[in-house]
């Protein structure tokens, strides 16, 4: 709640702050400018919340079904693949939300399979999968950068989107995403007890009657759906999918049922706060969201890798 209020009251337009926000909450009339600014900020806050929720849930699911504590839609290349799909859509002039979303989804799945095929060659260890994911991500991001430069103003008029930002999120796409993220979230909750058995390893989970292959496919497809929807309005945001589930896990432990509920709190919280930082850090200039989420995500990643080495 506090983070939402903070997010609504801070921004580059200094004329609207906490005072105007309270005026609105108390039902007092606002000037058209104040109203416009607050509407824009609320869309932005909603966008950040949806992005944090969707990416956090995707990360949580992927970490369990791939049995890889470092899994995250960004680090596995899903996000950059989705972004490539969106750019291809713009390139071929199919800018309606459904074509863009379908292309983003196809891009996310395609990069995911590429990452998996390549990590099989690299030995399938948790670290090998992530290193392959980051490598593929970099190559795809490079292609994306070139595409944005070639397309120029056509693409959201800005480079900001390419590094993840909810600053220019379109309302329709955010709403489309809410639906997708809710489907993914509900499905994860329904399946959370089965997913939870994977903490005992795949062998034991299968002996308990869990169809590990099918649950893995479900989670990968749902994560690609959620990520594609989010990338379509916010671009590839880094580390949220890694940091949110880990913050939740450190708070409530490794039981997936509790973890998935807690991620629904930690994900939006981290992304809304990151977005507030992103817009006030260099006002009136916007900072890409990934630049802020990295500050939270990178230490988590390092801590996990060091801890893993200690445990062997």
């Amino acid at each position, binding site marked *: 709640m506090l983070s939402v209020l903070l997010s609504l009251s801070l921004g580059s337009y200094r004329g609207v702050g906490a005072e105007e926000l309270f005026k609105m909450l108390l039902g007092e009339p606002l000037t058209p400018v104040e109203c416009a600014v607050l509407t824009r900020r609320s869309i932005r806050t909603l966008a950040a919340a949806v992005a944090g929720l969707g990416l956090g849930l995707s990360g949580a699911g992927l970490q369990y079904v791939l049995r890889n504590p470092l899994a995250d839609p960004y680090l596995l290349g899903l996000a950059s693949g989705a972004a490539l799909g969106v750019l291809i859509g713009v390139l071929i002039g199919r800018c309606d939300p459904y074509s863009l979303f379908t292309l983003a989804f196809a891009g996310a799945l395609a990069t995911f399979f590429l990452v998996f095929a390549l990590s099989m060659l690299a030995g399938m260890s948790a670290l090998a999968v992530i290193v392959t994911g980051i490598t593929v991500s970099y190559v795809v991001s490079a292609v994306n950068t070139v595409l944005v430069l070639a397309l120029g103003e056509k693409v959201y008029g800005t480079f900001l989107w390419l590094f993840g930002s909810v600053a220019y999120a379109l309302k329709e796409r955010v709403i489309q995403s809410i639906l997708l993220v809710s489907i993914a979230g509900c499905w994860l909750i329904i399946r959370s007890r089965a997913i939870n058995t994977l*903490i005992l390893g795949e062998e*034991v989970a299968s002996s308990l009657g869990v169809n590990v292959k099918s649950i893995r496919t479900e989670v990968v497809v749902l994560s690609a759906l959620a990520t594609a929807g989010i990338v379509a309005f916010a671009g590839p945001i880094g580390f949220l999918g890694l940091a949110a589930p880990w913050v939740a896990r450190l708070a409530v*432990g490794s039981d997936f049922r509790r973890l998935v509920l807690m991620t629904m709190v930690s994900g939006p919280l981290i992304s809304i706060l990151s977005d507030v930082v992103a817009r006030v850090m260099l006002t009136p200039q916007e900072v890409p969201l990934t630049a802020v989420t990295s500050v939270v995500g990178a230490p988590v990643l390092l801590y996990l890798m060091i801890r893993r080495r200690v445990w062997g």
Partner: protein
Amino acid sequence: MECPSIIVEELAAGYGKRLVVKGVDFRVERGEVLAVIGPNGSGKTTLLRVLAGIIPIVEGRVCICGKSYKAGSLVRAHSLVSYAPATPIGDPWARVRDMLLAARYGVSRSLFMERDEDKCAIEEAARMLGIEELLDRFFGELSSGEKKLVLIASAIARKTPVVLLDEPMAFLDLANQSKVLKVIRNLASKGYIVVLATHELHLVPHYADKVLLISRGVQVGYGPLDKVLDRRLLEHVYGTRLVEFTREDGQRLFVPE
């Protein structure tokens, strides 16, 4: 729920087109312990995986607790059978308590979260294996032996009438081996069926009622201990010379020369 028997007839199974076990035939009754022995790679684990419903039956028939499963199908008796694999793998970040609770999947009567009866079951299993103090530790911090005990406990916490243990003595020190021995005998005395794969031939007489000897996937011996635990047969199957001891009670034991 009680389980009168496991009957396996002409069983063949494997991975893809490669058959790892062929023509396995045995029968275990309520309260009996069957020890599956044989060299590395002979198909012991594959056999247990079929019974655990992880890989399908390729040929033959398996009958567990009165339900029959035919060739081409998975033994879907997950709520009657528990399985502890040989290598102790699990999420290093999970607490032992959460792992044991997760194992109650399919046997717990609640829909989403476990109830008090599930908590009682896991505490009882932890007590049997002496790992109560590990319940709040991370799985990743434990030694291999402790991890092994956790997996055995998670199988026992399910309280299913059939328990499958793959190399239950691996990684364990002498005191823990003796603890697991007692647990196996205790389960059998309560009417459970225990099927286990093992390399510790000298321990087999302590708990087993029957022995199944397989070599390269083929059954070469099955029956009571004194029939299968024969020095010449074992030397032939394992391809190494063995020394035979006779215990005070007349039981024969074998160790490598």
